[in-house]
């Protein structure tokens, strides 16, 4: 019984709904970036929703230098990239052995790794703290790398086994016939076949590792070794509420790398982040 008038109103309401959804998700981040460009005086003279009067880049310089964000960035990079390398390397090797090689307990092995997906982090913190204390890995980025690799492996192995499943067995078998060694098959045949998956999984793990707080705040107390997330926690503490500009700039800096990465690779990121949930 839709009259054209009813349809017209429905259309407007629908458009309005979409508009509201976009505002709710996008505006807070836009507001953050705008606030990071305000000069110190603007926070007390004009309301929070106004746009900055000019681009006050000084906030970023202050946050980077005095706020130590530069050091935190360096530490995050040092912790993240080796972690990603090992997660992919070890994860792909294990997934290859589980999915493509022939041995009795390969399914059981996969199950052992899958358990790790469910484990809540608090249960491992105290024993790990004890271990790291005893072997001198507290306040050491290497300790963080070990933890990130261990916690990155379950999902990575799970995803890689399902991608390896799509690589035809005939391909591997004919390579065996041609006399290729198993290592050669892994490196020159299997890995290139799942290169897209490697990119996807690397991205997913990047977001987990780069955004981690709980491990970094437990195992690192030295302020010179803090990562971005822990640094950000202490940042607003040190500056208190007076220095709004640098605080906003620091939060923006923590957001920017992921924002930029996401803008360029949004399709892959969305696919990767959700594939674990869809398949599990």
């Amino acid at each position: 019984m839709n009259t054209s008038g009813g349809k017209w109103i429905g259309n407007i309401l629908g458009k309005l709904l979409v508009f509201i959804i976009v505002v709710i998700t996008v505006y807070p981040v836009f507001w953050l970036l705008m606030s990071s460009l305000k000069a110190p005086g603007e926070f007390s003279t004009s309301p929070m929703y106004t746009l900055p009067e000019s681009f006050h880049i000084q906030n970023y310089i202050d946050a980077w230098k005095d706020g130590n964000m530069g050091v935190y960035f360096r530490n995050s990079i040092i912790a993240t990239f080796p972690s990603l390398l090992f997660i992919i390397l070890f994860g792909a090797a294990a997934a290859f052995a589980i999915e493509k090689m022939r041995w009795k307990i390969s399914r059981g092995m996969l199950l052992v790794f899958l358990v790790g997906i469910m484990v809540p982090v608090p249960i491992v913190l105290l024993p790990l703290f004890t271990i790291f204390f005893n072997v001198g890995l507290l306040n050491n980025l290497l300790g963080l790398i070990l933890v990130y690799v261990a916690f990155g492996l379950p999902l990575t192995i799970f995803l890689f086994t399902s991608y390896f499943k799509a690589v035809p067995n005939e391909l591997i078998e004919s390579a065996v016939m041609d006399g290729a060694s198993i290592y050669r098959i892994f490196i020159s045949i299997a890995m290139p076949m799942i290169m897209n998956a490697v990119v996807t999984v690397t991205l997913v793990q990047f977001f987990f590792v780069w955004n981690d707080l709980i491990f970094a705040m437990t195992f690192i107390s030295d302020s010179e070794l803090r990562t971005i997330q822990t640094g950000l926690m202490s940042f607003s503490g040190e500056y208190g509420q007076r220095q709004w500009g640098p605080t906003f700039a620091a939060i923006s800096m923590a957001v920017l790398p992921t924002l930029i990465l996401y803008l360029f690779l949004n399709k892959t990121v969305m696919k990767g982040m959700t594939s674990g949930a869809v398949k599990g």
Partner: protein
Amino acid sequence: MKEVLGDRKAILLFMLPALLIYIVILLVPIVWSSVYTFYEGSLIKGFSFVGIQNYIQLFNDSNFFSSLWITLKFTLIVTTGQVFLGLMLSLLYVFYIKRASFLIRTLVFFPVVLPTVAIAQLFAKLFEIAPNYGLVNSVLTAFHLETWVQAWLGQPETAFWILCIMEIWKAMGFYAVILYAGLMDVPEDVLEAAKIDGAKGWKMTQFIILPLIKPILISAIIFSLSGTLKVFEQVVALTGGGPGKSTTTLSVYMYQHAFTNGNYGYGSTVALFLLFMTLVVTLIVYKVSWKDQT
């Protein structure tokens, strides 16, 4: 063939690095943590065996029960919010915006990848009251709703709700995309047939769409439940568990006992309870979904 693909040395070489690091950093600590539950003390104070005293303490600890209650409340509200709003969004993508929805999906998904700490700091600023009004209080003033202006994060009730809202805001795009993928798999002709039979709107959703995407809806619920049960970073970064104990969830409570009070045994007991709870919830949801499918 068998020689190459069943080469034990190669299998060992492929498996060993992953297995070793996984066992040492993840599996051994779980067992170790269970052992801690029978001890008292810390690295500095030293440990002493106390039998099941930690478990007795757990069941007599009103603070534990209050944080358990807060965790359950948070889990229930946030899972409902995330999955329900995710579902609504996904329906909107498929049936209203249709093929052109890519941009909207991308925008709504975006908070998913942002660092939790940054989001929490952002929300703290949004709801700030002193020394300057944050965005929310500032907007309320502009609309002459001065009576609504308040210290959102300084009051137990509102702080808890802002924590919930933040978590729903962050993750709803994730569930929307998962459910969208599920909806895309629903055959077009099934929907057409239902339409011809006169199903539309909510009836269509309830009787045709929901049953068809049930498996994916259940994985979304499991995902959300297991994520929200262990909520930690959001709380630490937004409220630190306060004001009072109003946002102290189980994992935050565990952390306070273990690292602030230096009581490893009791902290581990709380952590073990958390692990147990996560497993039970997953099993229940799997059981329920399995029963319905046969």
